[in-house]
């Protein structure tokens, strides 16, 4: 059983905390995605697991072995580098054979495993090509096959799809996911592409400024973000800043009195009873959960009038920026149903935005964590 255990690992470069107190257990066969803005420490974390960056503190275990002080070449991890890092002087087949040769497997076994690996990534006929004779997507698959064929205890993928065009990227991400599942590989993948993260992960880890902000499934992160950073980073969110008046009632800085339902609050969010009245908070509202209409929808607890300030036709949805009567702006995503009753709103038109109590989520009104470290 190859589980990856990271116990409070940290990495400092001088004054820079590239990674701090990172604790995570990745179960056998699980695919965890590290998600976060540029410079938040994703690559550093991956390289600590692979053994290229020594941890300043903390312990790393792979399949029960403590590898914290073990050199990279003895750890048995399979790292797919962002730029692939294929050996330019070796053919695709020789690239894939390299790790097997290092393991001193007999030549016929190596040959057979290489053939199978090539078939697995559907490059059967291209084994004799040098990397420079392969397309980006083909090189990417050689890199993947090279990492898979050694049956690593940990498969580590550092933005493996970033060099591919959009269409190939979607194909390859399905391929990687299927292979990873079929082979039961414990996998850590880094990306800053949210769609990719949401499509592939068993669990996601949202990082910011070297620290874990929240760990959870896609649904948990989206529905129950623990803080403002996660709410803003996973999917889109409107934030209204203001004060808690009393449990269940929020007054925005613009003077709107809005109702929310504290019962859906996640562990880290502020339960209505738990906060002193008058505390500064942010109210998070997902744009697709707001309704836009000509008349105030009396069935919904919150109704605010405003004017359409900007509209983008995005295909499946239409995005409106609505300037509320209070001066604040809300982004609203209206489904583009094409139904006869639906109408598009013109710029300057007066509309009403409404939402039920369970949409609003009250979060600590902290700064974005990354702002603290600039």
């Amino acid at each position: 059983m190859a589980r990856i255990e990271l116990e409070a690992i940290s990495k400092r470069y001088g004054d820079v905390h590239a990674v701090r107190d990172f604790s995570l257990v990745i179960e056998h066969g699980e695919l965890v995605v590290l998600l976060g803005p540029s410079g938040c420490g994703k690559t550093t974390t991956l390289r600590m697991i692979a053994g290229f960056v020594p941890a300043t503190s903390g312990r790393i275990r792979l399949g029960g072995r403590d590898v914290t002080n073990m050199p990279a070449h003895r750890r048995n991890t399979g790292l797919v580098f962002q730029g692939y890092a294929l050996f330019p002087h070796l053919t695709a087949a020789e690239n894939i054979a390299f790790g097997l040769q290092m393991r001193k497997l007999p030549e016929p076994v190596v040959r057979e495993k290489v053939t199978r690996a090539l078939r697995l990534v559907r490059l059967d006929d291209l084994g004799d090509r040098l990397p420079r004779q392969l397309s980006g997507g083909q090189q990417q698959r050689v890199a993947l096959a090279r990492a898979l064929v050694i049956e690593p205890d940990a498969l580590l993928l550092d933005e493996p799809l970033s060099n591919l065009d959009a269409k190939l990227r979607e194909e390859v991400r399905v391929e990687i996911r299927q292979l990873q599942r079929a082979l039961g590989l414990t996998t850590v993948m880094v990306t800053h592409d949210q769609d990719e993260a949401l499509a592939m992960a068993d669990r996601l880890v949202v990082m910011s400024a070297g620290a874990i902000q929240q760990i959870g499934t896609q649904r948990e992160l989206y529905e129950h973000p623990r803080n403002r950073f996660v709410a803003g980073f996973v999917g889109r969110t409107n934030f209204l800043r203001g004060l808690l008046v009393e449990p269940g009632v929020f007054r925005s800085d613009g003077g709107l009195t809005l109702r929310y339902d504290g019962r859906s609050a996640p562990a880290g969010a502020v339960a209505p009873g738990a906060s002193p009245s008058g505390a500064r908070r942010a109210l998070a509202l997902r744009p697709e959960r707001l309704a836009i209409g000509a008349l105030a929808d009396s069935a919904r607890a919150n109704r605010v009038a405003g004017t359409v300030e900007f509209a983008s036709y995005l295909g499946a949805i239409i995005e409106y920026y609505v300037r509320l009567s209070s001066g604040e702006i809300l982004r609203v995503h209206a489904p583009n149903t094409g139904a006869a009753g639906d109408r598009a709103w013109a710029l300057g038109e007066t509309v009403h935005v409404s939402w039920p109590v369970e949409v609003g989520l009250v979060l600590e009104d902290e700064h974005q964590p990354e702002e603290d470290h600039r």
Partner: protein
Amino acid sequence: MTAGRAALLVAAGLALGFILLPLVLVSWLSFFRDEVVVFPPSGYTLRWFRAILDQRNFVDGFVTSLEVGVFAMLAGLALGVPASLCLARYRFPGRESLGLVLLTPLVVPGVVAGTAIYVFQVETEILTRLPLVASLPGLVLAHVVVTIPWTVRLVTASLVGFDRTVEEAAQNLGAGPWTTFRRVTLPLIRPGMVAAALFGFVISFGNLEMTLFLIGPGRTTLPIAILQYLEWRIDPVIAAVSLLQIVIIGAAMVATDRYVKLARVL
């Protein structure tokens, strides 16, 4: 074509002609039939090339130059390649000065270097009683001083833009430091090393000024044998020897250029 461009071309052509003229002249001379050089020649012959073999000095000089060149080239690689790797990869105090020191032999006049090395070898010989002056090891040691900078220069050029993640990839796949070097680093810098080897040989083979101080009775290099021969006669034999030397050096440089574009590093 503009007038400016034409003028440039003419100037470049003149410069090239100026450089090539002596080479062409020497090559031409080596085929003259007459023993005393006269223009125009009364006919052409290949016998001067045969006559080279009758001159012990030329044959011995050629062999010595070959030996010194090969050993100096090998020693230059053995010392220059690790030095280039250190310079290209590690940051340490004095790194820039070290890089500079390794390249200084390129700008020190051969006469100065030759004198210095001669004095050094004489003193060493007095102290240790090892016969150094005018010995093969003595010559090789001196020539290594000029092959190292060229090796450093050419190998460093091939390390620029070297993608180190391929070395990490090798380690990730289970290769230790030595295996990584042998299976990945070495093959990737091999063109630079081949170029350094060929060019180091050329530099050593053609060296005259520095070597002048270090030869002795019974041990001369080819360029010095030519010089000594010229002191008492000029005939087409000398032209034939020169042509041979030009051909050897030219061939080595053309071969080098296939591995590292010389125009970029000279």
